[in-house]
């Protein structure tokens, strides 16, 4: 019985613990998956966010207000993500980032109902770039549709301005993440006259043998790959086995230096990836962070992570978010409201975080900021840009976006 009462007391104590917060700071909630599916990217992104926040705080914060980041694990479980959102919402946090497609989808109805800001770069519903429908959602960066269209644009440039007779294999992991670009690719194939072959492979992505046999038979000019991290490594092995040149391979943005190391830096020579951030630690912003924080032993994690492209991705997401909030304070003053932050983010114009990201311009209609990406090639030691920041086939991409967001808008009116 005594044990029971101790347990009960402990349970009460457990429920009542919450950190208190300073009133004049700007708070961001990073409800991240730090323990399950997204661990290949979330630690680097969180580290970048915290580093950049420290850097800005050392300079006086956002218009005099310090930045406070609250990082919490939700284990990629929608239920725990919702809990994180509901708790922090009541503590006055207005900007949320879930960095997980399932969790972003799960909190979206609440975000839209409560009118808080959801940052969902690179995850969640792609059609949320439609700011007219998704007023509170900011998927700043490219959608997967936009990325796929940009890949095709690159292929078009490489094939001398026409895609007639070009064979493109779309190689993807067979679940919603991989299936997303199919629609836009089909539209573009019809419009531009290239031959598109869909080559799915099943979860968890370790077995790609049959997919690659199929690709070998087709002998495509290009392979556009929607895979995550280690799946690229397996793909490279299968390509070697089937005698397919790795130079034909264009990866989605989820391929980093760790994967390159696993493929083998020499073997990976010629591999391409689409990206919306410049890779490598030779960027001015990363250099500044290294000098101000890591050289003084004040970094928020392992120094080697700063060479990871996902670190730059994190910097990109948070430089945009912080800049948006700074503009909000500058324009509409303190105290902040979600409405002011929305205005702030929507007034971002040609912002490129010191050359780190594709210049973005966010408007009330376009919450994606233009969706520019570029293709980079691994030359054995570093990433070499192959194109400018491009955003191809915008009309087609937006017609897909509009079609999907209209469906969401319709379901909202049905309530």
């Amino acid at each position, binding site marked *: *019985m005594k044990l029971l009462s101790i347990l009960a007391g402990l349970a009460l104590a*457990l429920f009542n613990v919450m950190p208190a917060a300073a009133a004049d700071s700007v708070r961001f909630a990073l409800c991240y998956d730090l*323990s399950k599916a997204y661990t290949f990217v979330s630690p680097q992104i969180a580290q970048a966010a915290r580093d950049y926040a420290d850097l800005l705080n050392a300079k006086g914060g956002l218009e005099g207000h310090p930045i406070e980041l609250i990082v919490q*694990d939700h284990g990629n479980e929608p239920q725990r993500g919702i809990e994180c959102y*509901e708790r922090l919402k009541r503590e006055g946090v207005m900007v949320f980032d879930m960095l997980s497609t399932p969790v972003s989808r799960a909190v979206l*109805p609440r975000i839209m109902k409560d009118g808080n800001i959801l940052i969902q770069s690179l995850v969640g519903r792609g059609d949320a770039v439609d700011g007219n429908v998704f007023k509170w959602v900011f998927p700043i960066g490219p959608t997967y549709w936009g990325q796929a269209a940009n890949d095709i644009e690159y292929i078009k440039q490489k094939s001398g301005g026409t895609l007639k007779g070009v064979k493109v294999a779309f190689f993807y992991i067979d679940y919603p993440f991989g299936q997303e670009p199919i629609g836009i690719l089909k539209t573009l194939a019809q419009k531009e006259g290239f031959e598109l072959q869909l080559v799915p492979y099943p979860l968890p992505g370790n077995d790609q043998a049959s997919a690659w046999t199929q690709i070998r038979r087709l002998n495509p000019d290009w392979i556009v790959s929607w895979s995550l991290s280690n799946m690229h490594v397996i793909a490279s092995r299968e390509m070697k086995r089937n005698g397919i040149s790795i130079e034909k391979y264009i990866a989605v943005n989820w391929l980093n230096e760790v994967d390159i190391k696993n493929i083998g830096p020499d073997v990976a020579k010629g591999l391409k990836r689409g990206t919306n951030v410049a890779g490598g630690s030779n960027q001015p912003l990363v250099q500044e962070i290294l000098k101000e924080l890591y050289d003084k032993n004040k970094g928020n994690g392992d120094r080697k992570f700063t060479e990871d492209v996902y670190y730059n991705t994190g910097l990109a997401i948070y430089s945009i978010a912080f800049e948006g909030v700074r503009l909000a304070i500058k324009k509409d003053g303190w105290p902040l409201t979600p409405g002011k932050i929305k205005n702030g983010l929507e007034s971002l114009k040609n912002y490129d975080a010191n050359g780190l990201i594709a210049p973005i311009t966010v408007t009330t209609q376009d919450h994606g900021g233009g969706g520019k990406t570029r293709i980079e090639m691994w030359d054995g030691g570093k990433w070499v840009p192959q194109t400018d920041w491009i955003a191809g086939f915008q009309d087609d991409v937006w017609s897909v976006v509009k079609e*999907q967001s209209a469906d969401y808008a319709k379901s909202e009116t049905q309530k």
Partner: protein
Amino acid sequence: MLFRQAGIFHTDYSADRALFPIPADRWMIGSLLLLALAAPLYMNTLYLSSYLLPWLVWTAGALGLNLILGWAGQFHLGYAAVMGIGAYAAVHASRAGIPWEIAIVLAGITAAVIGSVFAFAALRVKGLYLALSTLALQFVMDWTISHVPAISGGTQATLQAPDIRLLGWAVTSDAGLYYVALVWCVLVTSFMLNLRRTALGRALVAVREKDYAAAVIGVNSFYFKLVAFATSSFIGGVTGAILVGTFYHAVTPEQFSVDVSIQALAMVIVGGLGSIIGSYFGAAFILLMPGVMNSFISWAATKFGFSLGIETLAHLPQAFYGALIIGFLLIEPLGLGKIYNNIRDYLLVWPFGYTKK
């Protein structure tokens, strides 16, 4: 002490067969119900909407799974899929304009039909083989949802759920949604409590203990297994629909993935097979403990000033959580429900610890 049995004499059968023959139990249940009913008055909305509500819904789900696992003794590794079928059915039905009250019944029926069609095939095998074929149900459902846009709602694979409407009234407040969950949980609980006393419940237990022994005494084990599958799928389907209606507000395949099936299974096993109060404990433990552990450890970290990396902070609760599950199951393999029962049994005869129970 609490449960004074002295002076309780049952003079007729109905008193003897009452759900709670001991007054102390009745008092406890009554006051818990009152507390639950009054929860929106004294509990802040965070706990109400993010802890209590999902706990109640998942308890109903765990009870449904307990019916098949604890009562009928049949393994089911695809329970989340069954809940998912219900959720998708309800959302599609109410998007098509069918009133919500009917939509959730449709959800239950759809889940029951698909669940028992599957059971027809699955029940030809037993034990681990049955477990595997129910796992197949899970994967077939996952695949179907992600490959049929008409079900999943297009490439985004998210369907917004219309608001719950009861008799035309939209239920949107935290308290309203909580009551919907509470009513369903109480309904399922009372069904399960009464199941013990029915011929069906006894037949299920007979099947669980030894199905051919049951056949010898005239219980058609295949038929009762099928009934168990259908009933438990019905409960699962409606629970899935209510989970989406009151908590998620949008349905996506990941909400009902294989991980969730394993979680539901863990709720039943940690709670205790065939135990009703155990299902409550199990659901609370599996569902709420990770989050609670998480905030406890980050609180302790700031309080006692040990700085931990964010990744360590994320993994530490999992380690503790795992250790807790192992710990509880070592102390009492029959689950949290049995721990409660041990305490109750002890108090029943207190202070005479030596009395035969």
